[in-house]
């Protein structure tokens, strides 16, 4: 037994090629258990593809490990028990009740022809309570507001009871208040349940505020990583985003004109 626990997520020269084109190019990094690490980078840098590779939705070269276990050996269900995905634009069947939707998070624990056990129903109910959705449990997804939908999607991911939460632009559809609310909620869940959070975000200020470390992905490679203050610098952002910004005291990234 090694003295040091294996990281929640570790990539070793992981690459993804889609349609003959290399999108993610030999990426190596590790995320410790309980950490919140955020992936930033311009459009087309390969953020979503990297997330999809970790979720097992596209094949990869190189190694990806989850708590020391080889990604490829886990199988679909095994992977789904270890990684819960909150997609950028989730598909929400309009007529489905919130409680039924959250129960879908238990899919990796239900046998092929089986049905949910009492344990599964209890886990879903717990996730609903944890995200303050009790009053909305019987409502149809189509009748929810944007913030409520986001909470329903998070509840489904929490019901999955996976140690790693994968967030792909989780707040891009929300207003400023709901964004903060959702990110605070995710942070509280992380601390309560000891989750590890790995996410991709566009808003650099929010990315810096909620993550303990940032990874800057550009052209499929990691070009900078470290605490937010070391990655969110004017020269790095100018070089990789082609954006003129000012980084002010406290880590806020402000676009400037001219």
């Amino acid at each position, binding site marked *: 037994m090694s003295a040091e626990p294996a990281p929640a997520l570790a990539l070793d020269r992981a690459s993804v090629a889609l349609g003959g084109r290399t999108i993610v190019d030999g990426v190596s990094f590790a995320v410790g258990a309980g950490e919140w690490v955020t992936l930033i980078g311009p459009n087309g840098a390969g953020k979503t593809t990297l997330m999809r590779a970790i*979720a*097992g*939705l596209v094949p990869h070269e190189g190694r990806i490990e989850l708590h020391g276990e080889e990604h490829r050996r886990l199988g*679909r*269900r*095994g*992977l*789904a*028990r270890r*990684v819960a*995905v909150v*997609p950028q634009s*989730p*598909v*929400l*069947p*309009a*007529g*489905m*009740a919130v409680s*039924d*939707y959250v129960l*879908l*998070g238990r*899919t*990796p624990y*239900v046998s*092929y*022809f*089986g*049905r949910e056990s009492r344990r599964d129903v209890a886990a879903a109910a717990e996730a609903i309570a944890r995200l303050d959705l009790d009053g909305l449990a019987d409502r*149809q997804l*189509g009748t929810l507001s944007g913030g409520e939908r986001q909470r329903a999607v998070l509840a489904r991911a929490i019901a*999955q009871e996976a140690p790693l939460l994968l967030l792909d632009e989780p707040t891009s559809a929300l207003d400023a208040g709901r964004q903060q609310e959702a990110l605070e909620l995710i942070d509280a869940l992380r601390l309560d349940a000891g989750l590890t959070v790995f996410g991709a975000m566009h808003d650099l200020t929010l990315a810096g505020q909620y993550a303990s470390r940032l990874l800057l992905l550009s052209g499929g490679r990691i070009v900078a990583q470290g605490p937010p203050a070391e990655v969110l610098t004017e020269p790095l952002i100018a070089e990789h985003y082609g954006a003129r910004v000012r980084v002010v005291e406290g880590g806020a990234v402000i676009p400037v004109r001219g």
Partner: protein
Amino acid sequence: MSSRLWLPGAAVFLVAALLTGALIGPVHIGLGEALESLGAKLPLLHVHSPLSPVDESILWDIRVPRVVLGALVGAMLALAGASYQGVFRNPLADPYLLGVAAGAGLGATIAVAYLPHGTDYQKILPPAAFVGAAVAVVVAYAIGRTTGGSSAGATLVLAGVTVASFFTAIQTFIQQQHSDTFQEVYSWILGRLPSSGWSDVTLLLPYVCVAAAGILLHRRLLDVLSVGDEEAASLGVHVGRVRLVIVVCATVGTAGAVAVSGLIGFVGIIVPHAIRLVAGPSYRLLLPLSVMVGAGFLVLTDVIARTALSPAELPIGVVTAFFGAPFFAIVLRTSRRMFA
């Protein structure tokens, strides 16, 4: 209405439809007589049938097999429609989506055109149609699969449309060359339930049982698929595998139904959608309800088809659309539920 009452409600509807189908016809047979006759068929009851041998034969050799066949076909089409709509997440998907109808039509046309005159078409049409339907879907699947990807469902639907047009073109060409086949094939295409006793029932029953069991066992997974291929995969489901199994089941059952009864349209679309509109989108409830309501719906439609212009018979496909469409329009207008 509470969701727990839907299943018993649908069962009552089905039983009422079956009784209506068995009792209505040119020869009057009362409910009491029919039930006593049924009792006489059961062991240990020591009931004597009050019916004359002729009425007995009308009930058990003509009406009941036709009612049972209608129930099997209706249940299968509704169930196949619901499951196609689920695996392709397309509300317009019907049981004929992947070329079943065009393939069956081509198979039937080839049989009528190229087999020697005097062949018993009643005997030869079902297997010919079944083989045509199966070939069409296999070709569609082969095309849709090789070009598949993350939008595999949509690709498959397009492949089905392609195969259907190609097969229909060949069928039309053969019909042009053999205009004498037109009458035979046309009446089959309009759909009808044959009154040929129990042989069609025994022919179709195994297909429907296997297909229905296979589909119903996947009802929870169909709910998972409703969040899309990618999210279902991230929940641990092998989406392609599940879709293949359900498509195979639905296709085998539909091909069997088409082989014995021709192309009965509309049932596979309106029955599942009407149920969705009133009982919600969950496949756990939708699939068993589709079986019962689809069966009852087709039996009642057949009663109209054979009584409206009695002694002539309307093609049942015409009746399903003529009465089904307005009914569905009413459900659509009065329901505030959204489509899933």
